[in-house]
């Protein structure tokens, strides 16, 4: 639908402008054409409104010939034809209206002279202004739309960041770690200090990484290692870990916080439920142009169903899909006594991804 018809106010304003055009036309007829005032008013205002209504059709022509990517010649021809047709139609309507107004054989009042040239001139001016106005309105509308879309995208990105941050600042993790620091301060100040550094490191990294679109795998691995180092202070001997990251994938671009939540799940839903603990294994290697990232851990078959099942995993999945689309996959292999998540991502170097 034509945008003018969407709002009553807009339509009234638009017609108001054309009424003013009609009044100007009246003045032109009275002074330039020596026509009587009453007749000029009666003649000019309705035909001005008719031109206004006619000009609404330009909107569709504007849609078909965007100013930015239509060749100049093509545009000139199209508008010349559209303007001429519009002008002719308008003159015909005005002529009929004039005949209607003066019931005698005359078309115009006796005193009036040169009304037709004036009409043609005024029509050409009116049509030109209308076309220009349509282009300006279109450009305005487009820039507003673009702004809104950019804003929407920003909100979406911010939402994703917040979500991952909230997942990051797991209160259980935070308070338990603080408890460990409090305990260490009493008898091992060196270790307490070390723990503070680890925590500062971890939170700083997750804050900065979360804002980026993609990061080198090596950074994500280092975040996961920091996380495990903190958890090892808490869990002691029970938590063990092994990292096997191939040299040629260190630089592969991955979405931030893709590995850390998986390692966190491996600890909290896996190793934490085992009396003897267990080992969290992280492997990364290149496979036919893809990066294969695997996190596996043992788990207790009798473990209580976790409350946050899948939240971290769902988050990881959606982020992987946002960045890589259908070329990426996240597979889960949940067994009685083991849990394994493997991610396949197109192996793009992080230098290539950022440039």
């Amino acid at each position, binding site marked *: 639908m034509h945008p003018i018809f969407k709002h009553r106010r807009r339509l009234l304003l638009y017609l108001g402008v054309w009424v003013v055009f009609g009044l100007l036309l009246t003045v032109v007829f009275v002074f330039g054409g020596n026509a009587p005032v009453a007749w000029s008013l009666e003649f000019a205002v309705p035909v001005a409104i008719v031109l206004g209504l006619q000009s609404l059709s330009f909107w569709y022509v504007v849609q078909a010939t965007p100013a930015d990517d239509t060749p100049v010649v093509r545009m000139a021809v199209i508008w010349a034809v559209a303007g001429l047709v519009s002008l002719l139609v308008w003159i015909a309507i005005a002529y009929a209206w004039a005949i209607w107004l003066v019931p005698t054989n005359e078309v115009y009042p006796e005193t009036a002279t040169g009304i037709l040239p004036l009409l043609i001139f005024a029509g050409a001016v009116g049509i030109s202004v209308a076309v220009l106005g349509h282009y300006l309105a279109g450009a305005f509308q487009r820039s507003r739309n673009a702004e809104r879309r950019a804003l929407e995208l920003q909100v979406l990105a911010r939402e994703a960041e917040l979500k991952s941050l909230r997942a990051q600042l797991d*209160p259980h993790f*935070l308070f338990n770690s603080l*408890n460990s620091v409090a*305990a260490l301060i009493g*008898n091992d100040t060196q270790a307490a200090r070390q723990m503070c550094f680890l925590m500062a490191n971890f939170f700083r990294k997750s804050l900065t990484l979360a804002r980026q679109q993609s990061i080198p795998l090596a950074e994500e691995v280092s975040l996961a290692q920091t996380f495990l180092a903190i958890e090892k202070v808490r869990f*002691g001997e029970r938590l063990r870990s092994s990292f096997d990251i191939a040299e040629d994938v260190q630089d592969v671009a991955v979405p931030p916080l893709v590995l850390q939540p998986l390692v966190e799940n491996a600890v909290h839903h896996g190793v934490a*439920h085992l*009396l003897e603990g267990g080992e969290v294994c992280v492997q990364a290697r290149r496979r036919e142009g893809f990066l294969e990232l695997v996190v596996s851990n043992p788990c207790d078959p009798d473990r209580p169903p976790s409350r946050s099942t899948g939240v971290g995993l769902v988050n990881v999945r959606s982020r992987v899909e946002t960045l890589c689309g259908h070329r990426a996959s996240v597979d889960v292999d949940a067994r009685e006594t083991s849990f394994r998540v493997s991610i396949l991502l197109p192996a793009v170097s992080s230098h290539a991804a950022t440039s």
Partner: protein
Amino acid sequence: MRVLIVDDETLARSILAEHLAKLPEIEVVGQAANGFEAVKLAEELHPDLMFLDIQMPKLSGFEVLELLGARAPAVIFTTAFDEYALRAFEVHAVDYLLKPVEPPRLAAAVERAAERLRNKIPPPSPEQLSAAARPPGRTLERILIRHEGRVHVLPLERIDFIEAQDDYLSFCAGGKRLRKQQTMSELETQLDPTRFVRIHRSFILNVERLARIDLYGKDSWLAILSDGTKLPMSRTGHTRLKELIG
């Protein structure tokens, strides 16, 4: 007062022990690193007071209490963060401490526990407490049974049916039976009503095990399970089951 500390984190136990050592008339008699140890030590050492972590491997704090039953000492729960458990404590006026624990707060909690012991105020039942600590809409997921000195953790999906026998419930899973002292109506309220139906005064059925229903007499039916077991079904039981499976 003799105290038992239960927490799966070594550091968490050590800081609690450190703070408690500074309080008068407190003796830490033992430390347990998991639920099984907690149950064992509580029964061997007969402490007056137990500091009990909620999230632990194998058995949660609530489950430890459930297993100890009437032999449970006074309890102060400790947790880092567990919104539902905290609400349960508030509702039942149970003492709890948030980690990291502040010494004045610890002293106050110990004082209150001593006061409760002197006045012999009974604690809320562990079932009530753990039910209140369950997130809304969540039902029981596993059953704890002590059988011949061992603790069995029985996930609900392994249970075929439950039969009431005098004061006991007999849990039947894959041909084996485990007995637990509990009442039918108490258990019924904790189970997921879309998975478990009380088909008879003395029987609760795991709906997944149902193979077919045979008419047995006027107003009585037989539920035939997939392993061939036949269970009697009352009229109300039949109606309930029909409502569920349509």
